[in-house]
C-alpha cells in the first residue's frame, strides 16, 4: 500500500524539524497552564473524600500517569509500525523518542499507585491483574529501550524496536480490561466514554485537566527529543549545517 507522495514530503526530517519547532512553545505553555490549573483545582477546590480523606489526591497524578503509560505505548507501536511499513524516518524517531517518556509515566503510575495503596488498602503491592500487567508494560518499555540501544545502525534499531513494540501491544488491552475480567484489589473503572462517571464533578475536572496536561507534556517532550535526534542523524545535510551555524552562534554568544 503506497502512501501519497505528499505524506512523504511533509514527514521529511527537515519539515518535521521546522514544524515541530513552531509547535513546541505552544505545547509547553499549554502544559504549564493546565498543570497549574489542574493542581490548584485538585488541591484546593476538590473536596475531601469521605472515605479516603486527603490521600485520594494522589489520584490526580496516578491516574493520568497510568493513562499516559498506555497511550504513549500505543503511539510508540503505531509509529513504529508506520516506520516499518512505509520507511518513514520521522515515524521511527517518534517511536524511539517516546519510549523513555512512556517508561517514566509507567514507573510513576506504579510508584504512586503503591504509595496510594499502602494507606488505603494496607499494602504497597499486590499481584493482581492490573498491577502485574502494568509492571509488564514497564518491562516492555525497558526492553524496547535496551534493544534499540544495543543495535548500532539506527535504521535496524528502529525496525527491531518496532517489531517488539507491535508484539507487546497485546498487553495493553489486558491492562485496560483486567479490572473487568478479574475481580481485583484495584478499583474498577469510574470514568468511561459512555456512562455518566461515578465520581464527584469537582474531582473529575482536575483529573481530566491533569490528563490533558500530561498529554501536552508528552507532546512537548517527544518533539524536543526527536528534534535533537534529527540533528544527529541528518548531520551531513545542508539544512542541519545552517541550523547548527545559527544556533551555535547564539549559544557561544558571538563570532568565533
Amino acid at each position, binding site marked *: 500500500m503506497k502512501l501519497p507522495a505528499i505524506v512523504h514530503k511533509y514527514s521529511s526530517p527537515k519539515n518535521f524539524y521546522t514544524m515541530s519547532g513552531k509547535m513546541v512553545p505552544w505545547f509547553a505553555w499549554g502544559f504549564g497552564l493546565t498543570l497549574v490549573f489542574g493542581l490548584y483545582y485538585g488541591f484546593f477546590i476538590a473536596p475531601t473524600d469521605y472515605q479516603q480523606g486527603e490521600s485520594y489526591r494522589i489520584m490526580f497524578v496516578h491516574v493520568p500517569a497510568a493513562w499516559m503509560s498506555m497511550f504513549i505505548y500505543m503511539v510508540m507501536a503505531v509509529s513504529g509500525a508506520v516506520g516499518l511499513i512505509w520507511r518513514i524516518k520521522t515515524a521511527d524517531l517518534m517511536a524511539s523518542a517516546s519510549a523513555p517518556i512512556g517508561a517514566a509515566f509507567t514507573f510513576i503510575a506504579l510508584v504512586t499507585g503503591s504509595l496510594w495503596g499502602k494507606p488505603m488498602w494496607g499494602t504497597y503491592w499486590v499481584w493482581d491483574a492490573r498491577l502485574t500487567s502494568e509492571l509488564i508494560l514497564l518491562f516492555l518499555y525497558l*526492553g524496547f529501550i535496551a534493544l534499540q540501544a544495543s543495535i548500532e545502525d539506527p535504521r535496524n534499531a528502529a525496525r527491531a524496536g518496532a517489531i517488539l513494540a507491535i508484539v*507487546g501491544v497485546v498487553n495493553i488491552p489486558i491492562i485496560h480490561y483486567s479490572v473487568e475480567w478479574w475481580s481485583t484489589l484495584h478499583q474498577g473503572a469510574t470514568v468511561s466514554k459512555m456512562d455518566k462517571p461515578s465520581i464527584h464533578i469537582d474531582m473529575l475536572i482536575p483529573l481530566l485537566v491533569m490528563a490533558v496536561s500530561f498529554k501536552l507534556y508528552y507532546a512537548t517532550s517527544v518533539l524536543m527529543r526527536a528534534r535533537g535526534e534529527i540533528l544527529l542523524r541528518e548531520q551531513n545535510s545542508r539544512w542541519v549545517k545552517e541550523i547548527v551555524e545559527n544556533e551555535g552562534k547564539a549559544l557561544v554568544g558571538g563570532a568565533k
Partner: protein
Amino acid sequence: MIPSTSSAFIALIKRDLMLSYRHRNELLNPLLFFVIVVTLFPLGTSPEKQLLQTMAPGVIWVAALLAAMLSLDSLFKSDYEDGTLEQMMLSHHSNAVLVLAKIISHWLVTGVPIILMAPLLGLFMFMPIEGIKTLMLTLLLGTPILSLVGAIGMGLTLGLNRGGMLLSLLVLPLYIPVLIFSANAVDASLAGMDIKGQLYFLGALLVLSITLAPIATATALKISVE
C-alpha cells in the same frame, strides 16, 4: 525442478531433527536444568508435603519457562554462524514458513521432553494425579507458545554481542501471561474448579502465536542477518 514450499518445509524439519539427533547431548542440557531447578525447591524451602503441593504448579511452570528460554540458543544460532540462515532467507520460499519449520523442530526436541518429564517432577512435588494431568495439558498448550514467542526474541537479538541477557528481558514480559494462566489452571483444577476459561485463553494465545510469530520472527531475522 524447483521444490515446493511444503516439501521444503518438511525437508527443513527433517534436517533440523537430524542435526539435533547428532548433537543429542546438547539437548539434555535444558532438560537437566528443568529437573535441577525443580529439585532445588524442596531443598531450599522445606520438604514438607503441604507446602510443596501448594507451590508445585508455579515452581514447575517457572522451571519449564526458564528451561525454554535457555534452549532458545539452539534455535537459530548455529545456522546464523555458518551462513545457512542467510541462504535460507535468500531462497524463494516464504521466510515465515521456513521459520515455522525451524520452530516446530525446536519444540519437538525441547518442549516435548519437558512435557514428558513433568509427571515425574509433579511426583517429586507431591502433586495429585488430577493436577499432573492439567499440568501436562497446560504444558502441551504452553510450550509451543514459549518456542514461538521465544523465536521472536531470538530473531531480534541474534546478531548482538551480549544478546543473551537482552533476550531474557525481551521475552519474559511476553511469557508472563502464559505462566499466569497455566499455573492458575493447575491450581484451579486441584481445587476442583472448572478450567475451561484458562485453557481457551491458552489456546487463543497459541493460535495467535502460530499465525503471527513466524512473520514477526522472519522480519526480525531479516534485520539481524543484514
